[in-house]
C-alpha cells in the first residue's frame, strides 16, 4: 500500500525525466502494431465469412426435391431466426415465338438473407443493389434471357400458363452458383405467382429450399436441431461448404501480417530495454537513498514494478486505440476488396492481447534491468561509484529471448515454421550486427580525413559502439522492411501491367455448339471483338486411378466434394498456351496424336497426389476412357483465357459430344451489341468478367497499400529506438557538449558533430537495409511471386539518403536542447 502511494506520487514527476515517455511510446507502438493487425485480421476474417455465406444466400440452406415441411420455418421463427424459401425449376420462357430454357427461381419475402441482388434497367448494364423481391405479377429476367428472347424492361414474358411484366433486368444474385458450365440464364419471380404458371406437375424436377439466417449462436443451435430433425433426401449446407479456401487464405495472410508486426514489436522491445536501462541508472541513487532511510529491498522493487505496471496498462490502452484507429483507416482503404458493405464489429480480444504483449515486453526487456534496483547497496549514498553487481548474462538476455520466442510461437504455432522463423530472426540479427560492426570500424578509420565536427561525430559512433550497433540493427531493420515492400510492390505492379493489359478478355462464351463454332467466332469478329483460343469442353468424371475406383480410395473420401468425385470439364488440344508452363513430364508432339495421354494442372495433380505415368479412367457420357498422365502444367489462371485442369492429347476425345468455349475482349462501347448475339446464338452462355477484372486490378494496389501501412508501424518503432538511444546518451552528450564548448568549440561545431554522428549512423543503417532488402526481394519475387527479379538502384539511394536524413533529423531534434545549453549550467551541476 505504501509502495503504491509512493509509486503513484513519483510517477507524475518521473514522467518529466523522459524515459518513461519513451517507454510508454515504445510499448504503445508495439501494442498498436500487434492489435492493429489483430483487429484487421479479425474483421476481415469475419467479413470473408459473411461473404462466404452469401454464396448460399443464407447462413444455412436446407434443400430437397420434395416440398419442405412448414415445421422448419416455424421452428426458425420460434428461435428468432429470419427465414425465406425458394422454389427452383427449369422451364422455357417465351416472348411471343422466341423462347429460352431458363432457371426459374420463385422466392418469398426476405430473399436473399445474405448477400444482395443486383439489377439494371437494360441487359448487360452495370447492376445496382435492389431491396425486396419482385412484386406479384412481375419478374426479373437475367440479361442473357431477356436478350435471347428479345424482350424489354416493361414488356411481357410468359412462363407456363401465366404472363408477367418485366420490372428489372437481373444482373446477379448471391446464390447463382460458382461454376460456369451448364448454367441456364435465371429469372426471379414471386413465389405467390407459382401456382398460376401450373409449372409444377407430378414428376417435374423442382428443388425446394429453405434459407435461414440470424446471429451466430442461435444459428449454431438451430443447425444442430435441423440436423437431428431433417428427413432423408434433405440436404443441409452451411458456411463450411462455402469456399473454405478463402478462409485459409485469410488465415495465411493474417499470419504473415502478424509476423510483420512482430518486427515492430521487437524494435519497440529494444527501445524499452534502452529506456529501462536508463530508468534503472537514474534511479540507483534514489533507491540507495530509500534503503538508507529504511526501505526494504522488496519495497523498492515494488515501487518500480508498480510504476511499470501502471505504464503497461496505459500503454495497452493507448496502443489499442492506436491500433484501432490504424485498422479502421486500413479497412476503409481496402473496403472495396470485401464484398459485404457493412464491416463486422470489433472484438475485444486484441485489447487483451495488447495488454499481455505490453506485459510480456516489459517482463522480457525491462524486468531484468529492474531487478538491479533491488540490489543497489545502500552505501551508494556515500560512494557514488558503488553500483549493483552486474547482471548475470543468463538473467540479462534469457527473459528477452524467452519472450521473443514466446511471441513467435504464439503467432506461428507450427513447429517447423516456428523453428524457421526463430532461426531466421537470429541469423538476421547476427548478420546485421556483424555487418554493422564492420561498418562502424571502417567509418572510424576514415575519420582522420574529415573535418573536426565530422571526426568528433564519427568518433562518438565508434566509442558508443554497443549502442551504435543496436541502433544500426534497429534502424536497418525498419528501413529494410519498408524498402522491401516498396520493391515488391513496384515489381508486382509492373508485372500485373504486363499480364493484365487493358485489352484482356472480358467476356467468356460457353456452350458453343460444334456446328455453330465457326459462325459464332466470325460473328464475334464482326462485332469488333478480339477472341482468344477456342477449346472444346467435354463433361467427364474421374472414376478410377491406376485401376482402383476413386470412390473406394482413401484420398477419394477425403476429397469428397472436391476434385475427385466432381464432374470435370475436359478438353483436348495440340498446342500449349503461353500461359501454361510444363513443370513435369513433357508436352505432346504431333507424333503423340491419338495416344491416350493427359496433361494435368499442378493444382489437380497435387490435390490428388498423382504421379507422372498414373493411369486415370474417366467416365465420359457413359463410356470409360483411360489415359496416362504425361505432363503437369503450371497455369496462370489470371490470363483470363480458357484453361482446364485436365487436357487430353488430340485424337482421343474427338468422338465425344461436347461444346466449345472461348473468351473475347470487347471495348467499352460494344458490350451492348451482345444482345443481338444472345438472340442469334441462344444456347451460348455469356459471362461478363469486366467488373471482376476491374476489381482484380484494384485489389493488388489496395492490398499493397494496406500491408505497407502496417509497416509504417515499423518506422514508428524505429523512431522510438532513436528516441531511447538519444535519451540514454543524453547526460553524456550534455557533458561532452559543455566540455567542447568550454574548450572553444562554437555551438555550430558541436551541432555539426551531432548531425554528423546521426547522419553517418542513418546512412550506414540505410546501406545495410538496402542490402537486406535486395536479398529479401530477390528471394521473395522468385520463390513466392514467381517473377523475375530485376536489380534496381533506387532502393540503395533511398535507403542511404533517406536513412541519413531521417536519423539525422530525428537525432538532431532529440539532442537540440543538449547542445543549446550553456556550458556553465552543465559543468557546475
Amino acid at each position, binding site marked *: 500500500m*505504501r509502495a503504491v*502511494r*509512493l509509486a503513484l*506520487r*513519483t510517477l*507524475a*514527476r*518521473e514522467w518529466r525525466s523522459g524515459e518513461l515517455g519513451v517507454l510508454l511510446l515504445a510499448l504503445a507502438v508495439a501494442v498498436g502494431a500487434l492489435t492493429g493487425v489483430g483487429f484487421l485480421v479479425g474483421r476481415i476474417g469475419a467479413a470473408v465469412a459473411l461473404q462466404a455465406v452469401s454464396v448460399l444466400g443464407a447462413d444455412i440452406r436446407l434443400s430437397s426435391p420434395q416440398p419442405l415441411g412448414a415445421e422448419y420455418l416455424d421452428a426458425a421463427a420460434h428461435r428468432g431466426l429470419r427465414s425465406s424459401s425458394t422454389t427452383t425449376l427449369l422451364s422455357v420462357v417465351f416472348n411471343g415465338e422466341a423462347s429460352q430454357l431458363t432457371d426459374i427461381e420463385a422466392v418469398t419475402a426476405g430473399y436473399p438473407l445474405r448477400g444482395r441482388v443486383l439489377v439494371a434497367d437494360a441487359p448487360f448494364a452495370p447492376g445496382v443493389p435492389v431491396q425486396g423481391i419482385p412484386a406479384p405479377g412481375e419478374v426479373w429476367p437475367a440479361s442473357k434471357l431477356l436478350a435471347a428472347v428479345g424482350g424489354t424492361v416493361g414488356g411481357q414474358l410468359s412462363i407456363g400458363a401465366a404472363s408477367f411484366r418485366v420490372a428489372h433486368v437481373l444482373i446477379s444474385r448471391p446464390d447463382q452458383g460458382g461454376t460456369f458450365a451448364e448454367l441456364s440464364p435465371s429469372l426471379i419471380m414471386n413465389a405467390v405467382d407459382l401456382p398460376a404458371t401450373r409449372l409444377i406437375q407430378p414428376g417435374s424436377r423442382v428443388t425446394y429450399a429453405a434459407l435461414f439466417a440470424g446471429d451466430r449462436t442461435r444459428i449454431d443451435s438451430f443447425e444442430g436441431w435441423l440436423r437431428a430433425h431433417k428427413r432423408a433426401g434433405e440436404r443441409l449446407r452451411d458456411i463450411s461448404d462455402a469456399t473454405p479456401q478463402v478462409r485459409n487464405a485469410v488465415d495465411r495472410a493474417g499470419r504473415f501480417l502478424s509476423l510483420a508486426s512482430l518486427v515492430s514489436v521487437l524494435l519497440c522491445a529494444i527501445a524499452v530495454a534502452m529506456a529501462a536501462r536508463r530508468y534503472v541508472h537514474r534511479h540507483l*541513487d*534514489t533507491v540507495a*537513498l*530509500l*534503503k*538508507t*532511510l*529504511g*526501505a*526494504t*529491498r*522488496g*519495497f523498492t522493487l515494488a515501487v518500480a514494478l508498480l510504476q511499470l505496471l501502471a505504464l503497461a496498462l496505459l500503454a495497452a490502452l493507448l496502443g489499442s486505440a492506436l491500433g484501432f484507429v490504424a485498422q479502421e483507416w486500413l479497412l476503409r482503404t481496402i473496403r472495396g476488396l470485401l464484398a459485404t458493405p457493412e464491416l463486422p464489429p470489433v472484438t475485444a480480444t486484441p485489447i487483451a492481447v495488447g495488454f499481455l504483449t505490453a506485459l510480456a515486453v516489459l517482463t522480457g526487456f525491462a524486468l531484468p534491468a529492474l531487478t538491479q534496483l533491488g540490489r543497489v*547497496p*545502500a*552505501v551508494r*549514498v*556515500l*560512494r557514488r561509484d558503488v553500483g549493483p553487481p552486474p547482471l548475470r548474462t543468463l538473467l540479462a538476455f534469457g527473459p528477452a529471448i524467452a519472450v521473443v520466442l514466446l511471441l513467435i510461437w504464439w503467432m506461428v504455432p507450427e513447429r517447423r515454421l516456428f523453428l524457421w522463423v526463430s532461426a531466421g530472426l537470429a541469423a538476421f540479427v547476427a548478420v546485421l550486427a556483424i555487418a554493422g560492426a564492420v561498418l562502424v570500424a571502417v567509418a572510424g578509420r576514415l575519420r582522420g580525413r574529415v573535418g573536426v565536427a565530422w571526426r568528433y561525430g564519427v568518433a562518438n559512433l565508434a566509442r558508443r559502439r554497443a549502442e551504435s550497433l543496436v541502433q544500426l540493427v534497429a534502424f536497418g531493420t525498419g528501413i529494410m522492411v519498408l524498402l522491401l515492400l516498396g520493391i515488391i510492390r513496384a515489381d508486382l505492379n509492373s508485372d500485373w501491367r504486363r499480364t493484365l493489359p487493358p485489352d484482356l478478355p472480358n467476356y467468356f462464351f460457353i456452350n458453343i455448339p460444334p456446328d455453330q463454332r465457326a459462325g459464332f467466332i466470325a460473328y464475334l469478329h464482326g462485332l469488333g471483338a478480339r477472341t482468344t483460343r477456342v477449346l472444346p469442353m467435354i463433361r467427364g468424371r474421374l472414376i478410377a486411378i491406376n485401376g482402383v475406383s476413386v470412390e473406394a480410395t482413401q484420398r477419394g473420401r477425403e476429397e469428397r466434394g472436391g476434385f475427385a468425385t466432381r464432374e470435370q470439364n475436359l478438353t483436348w488440344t495440340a498446342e500449349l498456351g503461353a500461359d501454361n508452363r510444363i513443370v513435369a513430364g513433357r508436352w505432346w508432339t504431333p507424333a503423340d496424336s491419338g495416344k491416350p495421354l493427359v496433361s494435368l494442372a499442378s493444382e489437380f495433380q497435387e490435390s490428388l497426389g498423382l504421379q507422372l505415368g498414373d493411369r486415370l479412367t474417366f467416365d465420359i457420357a457413359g463410356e470409360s476412357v483411360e489415359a496416362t498422365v504425361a505432363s503437369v502444367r503450371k497455369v496462370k489462371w489470371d490470363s483470363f483465357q480458357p484453361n482446364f485442369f485436365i487436357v487430353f492429347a488430340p485424337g482421343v476425345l474427338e468422338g465425344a459430344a461436347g461444346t466449345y468455349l472461348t473468351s473475347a475482349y470487347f471495348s467499352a462501347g460494344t458490350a451492348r451489341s451482345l444482345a443481338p448475339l444472345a438472340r442469334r446464338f441462344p444456347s451460348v452462355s455469356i459471362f461478363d468478367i469486366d467488373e471482376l477484372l476491374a476489381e482484380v486490378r484494384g485489389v493488388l494496389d489496395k492490398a499493397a497499400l494496406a500491408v505497407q501501412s502496417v509497416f509504417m508501424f515499423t518506422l514508428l518503432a524505429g523512431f522510438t529506438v532513436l528516441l531511447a538511444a538519444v535519451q540514454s546518451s543524453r547526460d553524456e552528450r550534455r557533458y561532452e557538449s559543455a566540455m567542447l564548448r568550454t574548450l572553444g568549440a562554437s555551438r555550430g561545431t558541436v551541432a555539426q558533430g551531432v548531425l554528423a554522428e546521426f547522419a553517418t549512423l542513418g546512412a550506414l543503417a540505410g546501406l545495410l537495409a538496402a542490402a537486406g532488402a535486395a536479398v529479401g526481394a530477390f528471394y521473395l519475387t522468385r520463390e513466392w511471386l514467381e517473377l523475375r527479379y530485376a536489380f534496381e538502384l533506387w532502393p540503395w539511394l533511398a535507403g542511404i539518403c533517406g536513412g541519413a536524413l531521417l536519423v539525422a533529423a530525428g537525432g538532431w531534434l532529440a539532442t537540440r536542447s543538449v547542445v543549446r545549453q550553456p556550458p556553465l549550467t552543465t559543468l557546475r551541476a
Partner: protein
Amino acid sequence: MNVTTRPSTATQAVRDSVLKAENLCKQVSSPEGLLTIVADVSLEIARGESVAVAGPSGAGKSTLLALLAGLDVPSAGRVLLDGTDLTGLDEDGRARLRAQRVGFVFQSFHLIPALTALENVMLPLELAGNAEARRAAAETLERVGLRERTAHYPRQLSGGEQQRVAIARAFVTQPAVLFADEPTGNLDSATGARVGELLFELNGNARTTLVLVTHDRELAARCVRTLRMEAGRLA
C-alpha cells in the same frame, strides 16, 4: 553555542551508550591486493552526545560512518546500535532498524527529485508506517524555516534550502542517532554556518546523538568530542 548542555551529556555517556563499535575492520579487494580501509576501530558514543570525525580525505571516515549506520558490513568486528547487534541482521533487517533509529544528512543532500519538500520529509515516516506523516513533516519543515516551501521540488530550492529539507527529513523520525557526512561540504561558508547552527539546535532539542564527519573546524568545535582518523585508524 549551547555551552551549558555539554558537561551533562558527557557524564551521561558513561551510563548509556547508544552506539558501540568493537574492533571494526573493513577490507576490500583491489588490483593491488587486499586493501584495508578501516582498521581495528573501537569506539563508544553516549546517548545525546555529539561526535565529530575529522581527518584527511581518503582516511576512511565515510566508510566508518557507513559501517556504524549499517549501510555496509564490516569484514570483522561488530556494531551495536541502540542495543541491537547489526552483524546479526540481514540487509532488510538493518533497513528496518534504520527506519526507526537512524537519520542521515549528506554532503550532496540526496533529496528525491520527483517529490516535493514536504513529501521528501514525509518519506522516512511513511517507510516506518507512521500514519501522522504529513502533520509531523509539515511541523518539522516549519522548524527548519521552510514553511513556505513545502510544495516546492528540490530543484526549485537553493543548496542551503535543500540541505535544510534534508535535515528536516533526518530529524522527523526523532532518530536515536543522526549521521552526517560533510553536511556543509557543498555549501558556501555563510550558508554552511547556518545549516550547522540548525543541526545543533535540533539535536539539542531532540536529544539525538550526532555523529558528524566534517572538515569544517567550527562545526567540529561545537561537538563534545572530536575523533581524528588517519589511514583507517583512530588517532
